[in-house]
């Protein structure tokens, strides 16, 4: 089994609370994995550790030829990992001082070192893809929640990351905007982008994911194809959770 991304024994503590308690993970190229589970269980922390927004205390992260020992990652390791993983935030977190188009260009010009013209052309392609060609010059404050999140996704898409991380991308949205954002993520999933998505949209997870991971208490309790998890979960904790949300 070839893993594009492999995580071994990832541990994260906040003070004396162990939030991630030895996470192992293997993602195949093009695999789309949804993480579900009660809140406060470490789902966001797992994603954040994979982008080093939180620094794991122990474990290994392997991504292509990059092999990071969490306990002693150098800042060069961290930058390299971030260049290969992109993050979509629950609250969009668009750069407030940049237009939609500039938000998408920023990683290309500053991090990838692309010339402005090339990055601008790429940003225009992405704006078209996310359906915001006419809003490229708008600042985040002038966009709706749904539009902001689509730009947030566009900003992450621009990086062509090996792994895209989505942390509850629709949880902060008014219900009227959820559909358009899910449609966009579905479109990206259809392109077989390797992704890890934390979501409470069970129906959506079932549709797009190759695999569902159920987490509780900082551990992976159970994982498998959607029909297995949603239809015939083995672990009582999984079944209890699904009954609660279902």
């Amino acid at each position, binding site marked *: 089994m070839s893993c594009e991304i492999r995580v071994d024994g990832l541990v994260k503590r906040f003070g004396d609370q162990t939030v991630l308690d030895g996470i192992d993970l293997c993602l195949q190229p093009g695999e789309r994995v949804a993480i579900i589970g009660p809140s406060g269980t470490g789902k966001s922390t797992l994603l954040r550790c994979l*982008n*080093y*927004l939180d620094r794991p205390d122990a474990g290994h992260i392997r991504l292509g030829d990059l092999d990071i020992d969490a306990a002693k990652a150098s800042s060069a390791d961290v*930058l390299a990992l*971030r*260049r290969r993983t*992109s*993050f979509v*935030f629950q*609250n969009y*977190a*668009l*750069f*407030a*001082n*940049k237009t939609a188009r500039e938000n998408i260009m*920023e*990683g290309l010009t*500053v*991090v990838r070192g692309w010339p402005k013209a090339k990055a601008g052309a790429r940003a225009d392609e992405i704006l078209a893809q996310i359906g915001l060609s006419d809003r490229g010059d708008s*600042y*985040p*404050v002038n966009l709706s929640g749904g539009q902001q999140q689509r730009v947030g996704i566009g*900003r*992450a898409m621009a*990086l062509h990351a090996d792994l895209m991380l989505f942390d509850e991308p629709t949880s902060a949205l008014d219900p009227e905007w959820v559909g358009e954002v899910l449609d966009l993520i579905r479109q990206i999933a259809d392109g077989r982008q390797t992704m890890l998505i934390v979501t409470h949209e069970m129906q959506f997870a079932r549709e797009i994911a190759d695999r569902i991971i159920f987490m509780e208490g900082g551990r992976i309790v159970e994982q498998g194809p959607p029909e297995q998890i949603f239809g015939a979960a083995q672990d009582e904790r999984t079944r209890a959770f699904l009954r609660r949300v279902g």
Partner: protein
Amino acid sequence: MRPLDIAYMGNMLPVIASYIPLTLFMAVVGMVLALVLAAVFAVVRVLRVPIIDRVVAVFISFFRGTPLLVQLFLFYYGLPQLFPSLTSLDGVTAAIIGLTLHFAAYMAESIRGAILGVDRSQWEAASSIGMTQGQVLRRIILPQAARVAAPTLMNYFIDMIKSTSLAFTLGVTEMMGAAQKEAAGSFLYLEAFLVVALFYWAIVEILSVGQRWIERHLGRAVAR
């Protein structure tokens, strides 16, 4: 009570006006240097750079905790005794150094506050796409902090213009020094100092109009 000598005041106008460039020169150079220094201080403090952070904290505390006049005297009269090579330090240079350090200390604190006021998610989003800490600061955080700090910094600039008048105590003939000399010759202290006061007032008023314009302009582009 004697009437104001309006004709005398009229004659004084061009005399005092001819010193406006020097006053503005000291204020503008001082402000530019102070801004750069303050931004560096603020970043050092926000990033908690080891050791340097402590040095900067003490520096800021000293320059906020002592009067500007005392600092100017220290630089102009005191330092040359310590470093004889500084005897050639002229009053204008000493005034600019003093104004720079004094105002940098205050401005560093407002810039620091403005940086800390930028939402944490902005740091995270910029870091997540692989920017270095310096890039995050320069491209995302400082521009947003600048917008927040701009009105305060503008007030410091106005304050700095008025404070250049202290340079006359270092033997510099700027607007205040010129008025002092005029008055010493004519004994018309009221007229001389009234004219110079009116000049400062006018300069500050003009700047306040500019300040409101800039704020409206910055506010238009983005809000947080």
